[in-house]
């Protein structure tokens, strides 16, 4: 792999210059001629019937151009990520189910007028009993959020593989425990915004998203127009982190306002709206039993999880299943039972999150350390003893191909000084380790695959057309780099048209960790196809067989005689001059068992491949204040092969911070009867540059057979393990095992007082 000109190296991303110059336009930066400003009226009640909405006074206010309600202006369409979860009327007609739910909306000539118009809308509510705790919601007699979902069970994922009860009985010892964590905010830097222009040709939309195709189809159903008339356009996006994957009520609302006013409309969310009214991450509680042999082999796991999913299903089956699937591919267990229940409560809906889910994975890693302690083993040795290896088939039938588990552990341990520090740090300091594995692309039905095209311009530069989306992680640069490498062009000779549903074919988006494997894979296929066609032309120019040619740095040359060459751009113009069209086409579908289904049949291959990683954290805990200071983080991630080593390092560092500092120490949403109390940066702790230590990223390359150039997903094994490493480090520093994340000073002090073990 060392003879690549671009791939595998640290390459300046193609999207950096416009961002440092302030030229990159995000949705709120955009405007169209005649544009109106929208505002949304939201429910103050967590649960209520909507008896009547009177918009007559609002409609009369000068400057108001459109007012919409669910009763008057929407189709009876309910959204759901899969058919059996269609429970979300995006602008409700009869009932509101969470504080902040959209009830009506206004478009006006300026924002102040739109706000005044909201005050003039009268809504008659009949408050209903509400429920905010999932255990309470499951009890008989609890308020019911959806009439067709008894017991408020939104999704039940029930997996029972191997012989769990027998293995528990035969284990030399069984550890039992529980853990929980409240909701988290996604904390995207860019507050959500939507700009739409709905005219006779259809609707053009700009909004932050993790997959425009994932929004286009539901929008076409909600608006009653063909999918091809819903055109989501590429825009710079200020982060998504799993919170912007699905269609949002704001998307439908802005389109409806624009259609009614026959003018473009833009809505920009406040930070509070961004926190409450797009997505949050689920609250989660876990009860577990883990059985071991005295030699440290982990033989069996039995897990029951209650997931507070809020008022609607969102990506319910996926969010409940993925943490379990991550366990399955991390450690080679055959006896596994998992009962995961997503429950409705009167809170905003919850979606996927890159740190999915701390309350499932932290207790697992903590109990591995407990087992190691009981056996007098180094936790690193226990993990190496239970290392995943290539060729293993997991409990539900996923085959592991490339696997860098052991190498990640060893390299992280070497870099962090694990052997020198473990058990030897001064009082109040500790070092901890955790491992993780994440699928590259999971089942997404018809949107699981990607297609790409490549065309050449008259000056010989190439343009790639791909549905890939970039939320800031560098996906655009990544596919451009793949195309340039494969075509043999310098990076600045390749352009990209992306994330546009009017132009680009179906693509999973920046979702399910599929961008490198699937979107990048499709672009590589397209480049290979274009190169094959180009070599037919160049072969004639060089009097050589196409199969004897190669391309690099804009030159096509005979492999055995590199002096015989022609500039690639000359081959392009030669083709054009001879009326030969060169158009590269490529596609990539994940290798997934088509019969696997999240709930009805959770068996079979569920992703093409899996990443691996090891996180190590060193902490200092102040026993007087309970404050946890993270001193150092080391993260080794097996990404298969780094397309851009710089971008992979960026992602590993993000993952370590987001998991370790945010998920581990800081993040939690506070509530009072369905109302968030800390939807702002003063009260919702978010780390500054002073709170994050140096992070050492280590790239491990297991060279995946399916990934483009051997690459798979870029960092999430660290997202799902660094918080656990911190939990284990806190135990070494204090002797206590925590029962709840985040590890706030309050929680640490409570645990120290109880000396909980």
């Amino acid at each position, binding site marked *: 792999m060392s003879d690549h000109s671009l791939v595998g190296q*640290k390459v*300046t*991303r193609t*999207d*950096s*210059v*416009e*961002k*440092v*110059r*302030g*030229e*990159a*336009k*995000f949705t*709120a*930066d955009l405007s169209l001629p005649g544009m109106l400003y929208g505002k949304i009226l939201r429910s103050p009640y967590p649960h209520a019937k909507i008896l009547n909405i009177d918009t007559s006074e609002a409609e009369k206010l000068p400057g108001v151009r459109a007012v919409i309600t669910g009763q008057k202006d929407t189709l009876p369409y309910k959204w759901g990520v899969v058919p059996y979860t269609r429970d979300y009327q995006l602008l409700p007609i009869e009932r509101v189910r969470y504080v902040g739910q959209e009830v009506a909306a206004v478009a006006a000539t300026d924002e102040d007028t739109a706000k005044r118009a909201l005050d003039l809308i009268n809504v008659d509510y009949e408050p209903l009993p509400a429920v905010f705790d999932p255990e309470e919601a499951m009890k008989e007699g609890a308020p019911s959020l959806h009439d067709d979902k008894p017991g408020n069970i939104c999704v039940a994922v029930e997996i029972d593989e191997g012989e769990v009860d027998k293995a528990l009985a035969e284990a030399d010892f069984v550890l039992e425990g529980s853990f929980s964590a409240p909701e988290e905010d996604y*904390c*995207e*830097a*860019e*507050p959500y915004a939507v700009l739409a222009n709905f005219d006779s040709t259809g609707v053009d939309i700009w909004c932050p998203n993790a997959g425009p195709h994932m929004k286009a189809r539901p929008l076409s159903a909600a608006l009653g127009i063909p999918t091809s008339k819903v055109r989501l356009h590429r825009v*710079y*996006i*200020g*982060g998504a*982190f799993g919170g912007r994957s699905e269609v949002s009520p704001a998307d439908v609302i802005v389109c409806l306002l624009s259609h009614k006013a026959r003018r473009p409309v833009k809505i*920009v969310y*406040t*930070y509070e709206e961004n926190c409450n009214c797009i997505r949050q991450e689920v609250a989660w509680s876990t009860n577990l039993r883990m059985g071991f042999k005295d030699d440290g082999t982990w033989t069996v796991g039995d897990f029951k999880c209650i997931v507070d999913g809020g008022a609607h299903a969102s990506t319910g089956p996926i969010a409940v299943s993925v943490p379990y699937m991550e366990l399955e591919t991390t450690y080679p267990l055959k006896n596994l039972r998992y009962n995961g229940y997503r429950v409705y409560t009167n809170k905003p809906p919850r979606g996927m999150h890159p740190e999915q889910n701390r309350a499932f994975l932290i207790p697992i890693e903590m109990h591995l350390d407990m087992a190691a302690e009981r056996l007098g083993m180094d936790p690193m040795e226990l993990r190496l003893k239970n290392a995943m290896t290539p060729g293993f088939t997991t409990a539900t039938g996923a085959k592991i191909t490339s696997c860098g588990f052991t190498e990640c552990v060893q390299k992280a341990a070497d870099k962090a000084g694990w052997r020198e520090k473990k058990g030897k740090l001064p009082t109040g300091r500790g070092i901890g380790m955790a491992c993780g594995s994440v699928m590259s692309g999971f089942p997404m039905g018809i949107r699981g695959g990607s297609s790409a095209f490549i065309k050449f311009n008259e000056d010989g530069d190439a343009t790639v057309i791909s549905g890939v989306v970039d*939320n*800031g*992680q*560098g996906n655009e640069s990544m596919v451009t780099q793949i195309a340039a490498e494969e075509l043999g062009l310098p990076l600045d000779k390749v352009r990209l048209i992306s994330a546009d549903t009017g132009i680009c074919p179906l693509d999973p988006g920046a979702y399910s960790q599929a961008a490198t494997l699937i979107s990048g894979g499709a672009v590589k296929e397209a480049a290979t196809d274009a190169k094959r066609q180009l070599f037919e032309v160049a072969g004639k120019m060089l009097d050589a067989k196409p199969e004897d040619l190669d391309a690099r740095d804009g030159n096509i040359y005979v492999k055995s005689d590199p002096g015989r060459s022609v500039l690639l751009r000359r081959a392009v113009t030669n083709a054009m001059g001879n009326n030969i069209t060169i158009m590269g086409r490529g596609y990539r579908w994940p290798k997934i068992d088509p019969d696997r289904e999240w709930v009805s049949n959770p068996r079979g291959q569920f992703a093409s491949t899996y990443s691996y990683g090891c996180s190590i954290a060193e902490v200092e805990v102040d026993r007087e204040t309970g404050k946890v200071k993270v001193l150092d983080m080391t993260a080794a991630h097996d990404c298969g092969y780094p397309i851009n080593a*710089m*971008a992979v*390092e*960026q992602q590993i*560092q*993000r993952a*370590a*911070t*987001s998991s370790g*500092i945010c998920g581990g120490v800081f993040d939690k949403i506070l509530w009072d009867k369905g109302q968030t109390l800390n939807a*702002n*940066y*003063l009260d919702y702790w*978010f780390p*500054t*540059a*002073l709170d*994050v230590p*140096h*992070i050492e990223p280590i790239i491990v390359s297991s060279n995946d057979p399916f990934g483009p150039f051997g690459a798979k997903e870029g960092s999430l094994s660290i997202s799902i393990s660094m918080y656990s490493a911190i939990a284990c480090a806190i135990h070494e520093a204090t002797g206590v095992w925590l029962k709840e994340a985040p590890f706030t000073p309050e929680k640490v002090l409570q645990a120290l007082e109880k000396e909980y073990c």
Partner: protein
Amino acid sequence: MEQHKIRLSVNGEDWELAVAPNKTLLEVLRNDLGLTGAKEGCQDGTCGACTVLMDGKAIRSCLVLAVEAQGKDILTIEGLSKGDDLHPVQEAFVTHGGVQCGFCTPGMILAAKALLDSNPEPTDKEIRTAISGNRCRCSGYTKIVESIAAAAQGQRRR
């Protein structure tokens, strides 16, 4: 609402504007002057995405009323480069991986410039303190700090 006339310099250009007294400098820069590089991230002055330089000092433009900018010299991200040439801090962010989604980037770069203008040899702690008012969700700050340190080193060599 009665408009107030203000005179200010923005990126070296003199402006005379009529602004409502309740408009922030951020709103005027973005909506009246079309300088959308400064961002509205939190609406309460805690994220730093709206950072611009006022008379050389990094300020949160969402917390400054436009009328308070009367007579001031404002530098936004758009005014930092000269033609096609990037400012050394911008260049360092590009080459050292200090940019991801780009939303915090304009504010981060200006905070860094203000630091380096007054402290050309900052320590790691001083860099982190200078950007502690700029929130980044994408990066974990490591490569941002490395970019600023590289810019400082580059400027010292010149």
